[in-house]
């Protein structure tokens, strides 16, 4: 009864209510969209970190993490591995052989972490194969040769294992990114020329572009026209289990790109069986066990179970290995709430104002209602309901618009590479964002909208309660 009166009251002044609904809808659509971008960004990074590097839980020999010595393997590694595989919460588990080493090409050499893994994809907890940079790149199971390696894009660039050639397709791609026309014309002069090192290509770019254009677009241009020198040789040098230095030539069969320069510049993947031979360790030796569980929320619980089973081993969850993950998963909701609270706080002034106007112009009517016996509680709840309905209508429209906006851009992706590719990838974020939203976020927003509506109605409702029926009846409108 009160609810339907409240709803009818809202539409007595259509324009005023619609303006407020529109404001709320607009603000919330924006909030949902911005939070969607953040959510999409974080989720993608989290998934990448889980799939490529940290997984959910990792097991090491406690000494291994301190000095990365190849001698500190997990005793009975293969046995433990098969025991863990049988646990019911395990989705995938993988034994790795990791070693520090040096990698060298004709152009330069650098430090690297060599990861030996089982080439079969379904056996893997790591899914780096999902991030192969182009269709020519192969994964370890597609090649019979033993001495093959998959390196990251950053490392490929550092070792000068990348060719650059500007073609018509490149120019088209850049045109689609809405780069300035004058820039494309300048690049046209380089069309068809092949550059076999990054330095050469950048030098050429520096000559045709202005300094400002070069700073802003060089990386973007480079990334849109490179191809990898697959099949080329790099030399990997490591210490074997006896402390001797072993070196071996590996052929690059694939390049991966996880948009995380720190990872892509450091990790390279080889066949585990071959690495075992090189390092002179018995087959089946493992110094890292990586585990994917069935529920990310239960990781700490699963970790405790494993810890009980293997007290001598160092068992770490993803939150131990990367504390920012913990922040992202548990604190992000507080951040979202604060963000929305600010927007809703600003909106609440508008709501208070509108409701106050609604109360003021209806003084006589309210006096009449009181006079015919409507009690104060009902008056209060009527005004409260009006405010909540008004806010909620705007809120729901806003959430729906925001949701579809997120859905649409989540499908097409928002490409920020034009502005900040290098900076974001250095931080481990992708330059193309696919916004996402979650039921949790929608729920949270709805609750906050209702609360705002309620809080904003308190002052106008109190104002209404203070009216004296006799006086109110006599006011002229």
């Amino acid at each position: 009864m009160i609810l339907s009166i409240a709803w009818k009251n809202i539409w007595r002044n259509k324009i005023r209510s619609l303006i407020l609904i529109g404001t709320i809808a607009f603000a919330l659509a924006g909030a949902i969209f911005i939070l969607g971008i953040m959510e999409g960004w974080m989720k993608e990074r989290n998934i990448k970190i889980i799939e490529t590097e940290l997984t959910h839980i990792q097991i090491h020999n406690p000494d291994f993490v301190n000095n990365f010595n190849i001698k500190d393997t997990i005793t009975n590694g293969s046995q433990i591995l098969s025991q863990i595989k049988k646990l019911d919460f395990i989705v995938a588990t993988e034994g790795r052989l990791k070693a520090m080493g040096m990698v060298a090409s004709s152009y330069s050499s650098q430090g690297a972490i060599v990861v030996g893994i089982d080439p079969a994809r379904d056996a893997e907890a790591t899914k780096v194969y999902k991030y192969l940079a182009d269709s020519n790149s192969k994964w370890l199971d597609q090649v019979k040769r033993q001495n093959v390696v998959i390196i990251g894009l950053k490392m490929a660039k550092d070792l000068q294992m990348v060719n650059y050639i500007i073609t018509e397709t490149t120019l088209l791609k850049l045109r689609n990114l809405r780069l300035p026309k004058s820039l494309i014309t300048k690049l046209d002069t380089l069309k068809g020329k092949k550059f076999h090192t990054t330095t050469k290509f950048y030098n050429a770019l520096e000559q045709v572009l202005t300094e400002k254009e070069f700073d802003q677009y060089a990386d973007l241009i480079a990334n849109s026209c490179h191809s990898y020198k697959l099949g080329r040789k790099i030399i990997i040098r490591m210490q074997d289990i006896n402390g001797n230095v072993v070196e071996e030539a590996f052929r690059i069969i694939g390049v991966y790109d996880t948009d995380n320069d720190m990872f892509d510049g450091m990790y390279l993947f080889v066949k585990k069986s071959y690495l075992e031979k090189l390092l002179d360790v018995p087959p089946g030796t493992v110094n890292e066990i990586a585990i994917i569980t069935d529920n990310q929320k239960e990781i700490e619980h699963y970790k405790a179970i494993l810890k009980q089973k293997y007290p001598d081993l160092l068992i770490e969850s993803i939150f131990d290995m990367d504390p920012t993950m913990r922040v992202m998963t548990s604190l992000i909701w507080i951040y979202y709430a604060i963000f929305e609270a600010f927007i809703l706080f600003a909106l609440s002034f508008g709501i208070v104002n509108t409701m106050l106007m609604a109360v003021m112009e209806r003084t006589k009517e309210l006096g009449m209602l009181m006079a015919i016996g409507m009690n104060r509680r009902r008056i209060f709840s009527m005004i409260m309901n009006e405010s909540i309905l008004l806010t909620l209508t705007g809120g729901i429209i806003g959430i729906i618009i925001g949701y579809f906006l997120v859905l649409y851009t989540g499908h097409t992706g928002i490409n920020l590479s034009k502005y900040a590719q290098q900076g974001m990838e250095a931080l481990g974020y992708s330059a193309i964002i696919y916004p996402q939203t979650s039921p949790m976020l929608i729920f949270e927003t709805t609750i906050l909208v209702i609360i705002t509506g309620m809080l904003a109605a308190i002052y106008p409702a109190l104002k209404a309660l203070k009216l004296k029926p006799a006086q109110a009846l006599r006011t002229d409108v």
Partner: protein
Amino acid sequence: MKRAVTILFATLILEVAFCQDATDIVHRAYLKMEGQSQYAQMTMQVVRPKWTRTVRFKFASKGTDYALVLITAPAKEQGQTFLMVKNQMWMYNPRVNSLIKLGPSMMSQGWMGSDYSNDELMNEGSIVEDYSHSIIGSEQIGDRDCWKIELTPNQDKNIVWGKQILWIDKRDFLILKAELYDEDGYLVKTQLASDIKNMHGRTIPTKFTIIPEEEPQNQTIITIEDIKFDVNIPNSFFTIQNMRRGMNINFNF
């Protein structure tokens, strides 16, 4: 039929002879700069477009397993020593009295700011054993007539280069120029040798210039001021105790 066989045989012999010849030339050139042990005093100049840096050092080595380097200039780095024993490397800094064993990540840094990485210094492959050689021509470098020899790495060898081309002086078997190519056949860097002098009985070039193809303005120039081959150095010379003595290390062999 008989003739065909003879011709075949002759070409075969020729080929083998030719090959051996090239290998022999490279081997002789290699021996020019090699000894059971050696002592040297050198200057390394790192040239960059905006600055130049000069480092002077004394150097002693024995076989391929032992080497010790003492920096004598600039004053800031004076007394720093590097010790290589087998595949390990240490660095000692007398100012802070700190001894550091160089780990894998430090090995990739350029040695004393040069284009040479610590890693490269320690792991030069042998131009004789790791490559097959063929003479591809003759060319004049300065006033010296040179063989132009192409080196292709042997299949199973761990060599980063696609090929090398060496210009070896016909009279004294000196490598006067070397071009290093990547696997795609692109030139990566050129090494030039000049200022041929007689050093304690050996005629050798004493100035080496390394020019990376990508950044020709970034050169590294090494000048040999004094070098002695096959000197008698005791194994005790290549120890951590000795490297800790810094400027007091006795290089009189």
